[in-house]
């Protein structure tokens, strides 16, 4: 019964992998999808040590915004702290992956500029006229951008932004402190335009659209809005650091054309299928009935793995696909150990049922120990990988070992008990033994 269940579930998972290819496609790494990867190092020497991580995440947000404006689907921007062992200096890195972008120079200039914080004036009458048109979000934004009036106030005039709370409602507030030039300009702006909007733009995208309630002459302003505590914190961070450039320089860059990747994917799929067939043929020829069951377990292994790649999701690279194919070869190892042991027990004259029991329990210690060593290797590989390509491989490798522990041991055990003949005849013995006669 359980054996049947496992097959049904595995088949369902396989169907999910196949049918969801449009809605949930595999996540392909840059080397397969084509695109650009840039690794920057950030110069944080002028930033106090306790603010480094804040300014790094502000930098990441800033660049993410720029990249989004650049029009890339699913860009990846992440920060990383790297250092060589034994050296005191650590480096703060920024990794930018731009799938589909092959014009590396354009990408670099879009990313490389320092963030710009600007204040604009938008007349409430204009704003209302635009929103009354009920346009879609993009068109509304375009119209608002066209209606905005330059104030000349920029992030360089902001001396500090801080998080505060409304004393009565407890809602988070962002308070701004301008320097003298900024305070003067802000005073002029607010005095003449009460009721209008002082829009805050970061890198050309609107960050906040507060309404001017009163003239602010002391250079202190407050942004109240219906934002959550986290949003307010983000805003403060962006205002503080968004205007503060963290200089970045390129450490490495990589561009892969899309044709190369597509060829690799096809080659990977083809070799996966061939490898599966070769291994399946070997198992069935050598181990007969148990071998066939191992092939069923291996098919379940393949489906489960592919589903996990989609669900986590695991970014598949050429090395990752190679790792998966390698893992198909390794996944059946536990089966081989068990079947060889079973065969040995049969030769000793045990009944089929006993031999199956013994096969599993006696082979277990070596399966456990060898898989543990594989996982140790995989973990070290994961933590010491210098590139995302290797990380992808390590992840696939670890998942493979773990899933194979389930399919090759648990699943094939149920299969074997389900079909094991209770009576011992010549046919059943033939099926359970293998072609290697002693």
């Amino acid at each position, binding site marked *: 019964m359980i054996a049947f269940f496992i097959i049904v579930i595995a088949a369902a998972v396989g169907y999910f992998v196949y049918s969801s290819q449009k809605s949930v496609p595999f996540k392909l790494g840059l080397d397969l999808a084509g695109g650009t990867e840039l690794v920057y190092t950030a110069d944080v020497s002028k930033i106090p040590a306790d603010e480094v991580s804040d300014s790094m995440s502000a930098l990441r947000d800033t660049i993410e915004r720029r990249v989004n404006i650049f029009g890339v689907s699913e860009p990846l921007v992440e920060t990383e702290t790297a250092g060589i062992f034994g050296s005191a200096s650590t480096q703060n890195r920024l990794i930018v992956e731009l799938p589909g972008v092959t014009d590396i120079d354009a990408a670099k200039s879009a990313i490389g500029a320092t963030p710009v914080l600007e204040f604009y004036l938008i007349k409430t009458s204009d704003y209302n006229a635009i929103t009354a048109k009920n346009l879609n979000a993009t068109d509304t934004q375009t119209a608002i951008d066209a209606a905005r009036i330059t104030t000349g106030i920029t992030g360089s005039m902001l001396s500090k932004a801080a998080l505060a709370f409304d004393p009565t409602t407890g809602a988070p507030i962002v308070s701004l402190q301008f320097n003298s030039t900024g305070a003067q300009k802000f005073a002029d702006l607010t005095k003449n335009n009460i009721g209008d909007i002082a829009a805050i733009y970061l890198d050309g995208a609107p960050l906040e659209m507060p309404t001017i309630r009163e003239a602010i002459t002391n250079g202190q302003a407050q942004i109240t809005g219906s934002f959550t505590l986290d949003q307010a914190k983000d805003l403060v961070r962006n205002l503080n650091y968004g205007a503060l450039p963290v200089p970045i320089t390129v450490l*490495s860059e990589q561009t892969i054309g899309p044709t*190369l990747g597509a060829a*690799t994917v096809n080659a990977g799929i083809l070799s996966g299928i061939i490898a599966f067939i*070769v291994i399946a043929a070997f198992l069935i020829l050598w181990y007969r009935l148990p071998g066939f069951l191992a092939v069923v377990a291996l098919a379940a292994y393949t489906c489960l793995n592919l589903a996990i790649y989609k669900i986590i999701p695991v970014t598949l690279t050429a090395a990752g696909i190679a790792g998966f194919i390698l893992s198909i070869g390794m996944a059946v190892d536990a089966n081989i150990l068990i079947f060889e042991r079973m065969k040995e027990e049969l030769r000793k004259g045990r009944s089929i049922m006993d031999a199956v029991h013994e096969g599993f329990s006696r082979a277990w210690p070596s399966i456990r*120990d060898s898989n543990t060593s594989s996982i140790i290797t995989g973990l*070290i590989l994961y933590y010491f990988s210098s590139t995302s390509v290797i990380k992808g491989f390590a992840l696939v490798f670890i998942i493979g070992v773990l899933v194979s522990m389930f399919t090759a041991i648990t699943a094939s055990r149920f299969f074997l008990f389900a079909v094991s003949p209770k009576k011992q005849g010549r046919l059943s013995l033939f099926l359970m033994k293998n072609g290697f006669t002693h």
Partner: protein
Amino acid sequence: MFIVKYRPIFYIFSGILVAGSIIAMLVWGLNSSIDFKGGSLLEVSYTNGRPSQDVVVSAVAPLNLSASVIPSASNEYDIRTITLTDDQKNSLISVLTALEPASTSTMPIMIGSTTATATISSPSMQVDGFNTIGPVLGAEAAWKSIVAVVLVILAIVLFIAWAFRKVSEPVSSWKYGIVAIIDLVHNIVIPLGVFAVLGHFYGYEVDTLFVTSLLVILGFSVHDTIVVFDRIRENLRVMPGSKPFSEIVGTSINQTFVRSINTSLTTLFALAVLYFVGGASTQHFSLSLIIGIAAGTYASICLGSPLLVTLEKWQKKGKK
């Protein structure tokens, strides 16, 4: 029994392989890729057939980029240089584009009622990939690789010593660990040696993916060793004291060598398919895995367990 009895032959065979590999590494060294030494790699393809290698080399030479030009596939070149700035990269690309004139094709078009001929020109060179790695990043990757290899060896050995901790007679568990170290070093030195030879004669490079293959070899080749050791552990329990250690080891090898070979075979099948069908980007990776796993299977049968017997013999001599 055969293997245990004639173990010196196998020691000598492995010794020759390892010594040869070490000599190859010392004499020729490894051809390290830009992953480790920093630099740039530009992959270009010429859709209408590539110019000859000499032409490319002499065209690139004036740029002073210490470029090496290596043909790949049927119409591509891999050009390796020092770490390029944007300007250097652009001038390199324009030099390469100029080598092959844009292909022109004519086609008739209708304008009103008259037929004219339009000339369409398309550049025949295209950039398939560009990769540049700063020297700092390269040095870091090289260092990380070495640390990872050493860590994996240590971790596996400690694990084996721990897993076999209950086995103390007649050979203590840490000796299983030592034998595992010898096995593991044997298994990665041989692919390293082969790649030193291939690097010298065919320009094969050692990159981060190659290091990954070494780590996988370490993780995988210990499987077979564990299978034999596990059987020795079991046989020592089943028939304690009654038989000499060498006989127990011999029996254990006989009982397990079919499965050692079969587990490696399935993996080697997968790798062979990957080597021939899997595409260029992982071909060298699968080659080094094939070499390492084959060496590992050999070592687990013919080197590791016989070494345990040798250690036991030495131990006995020491007691007398």
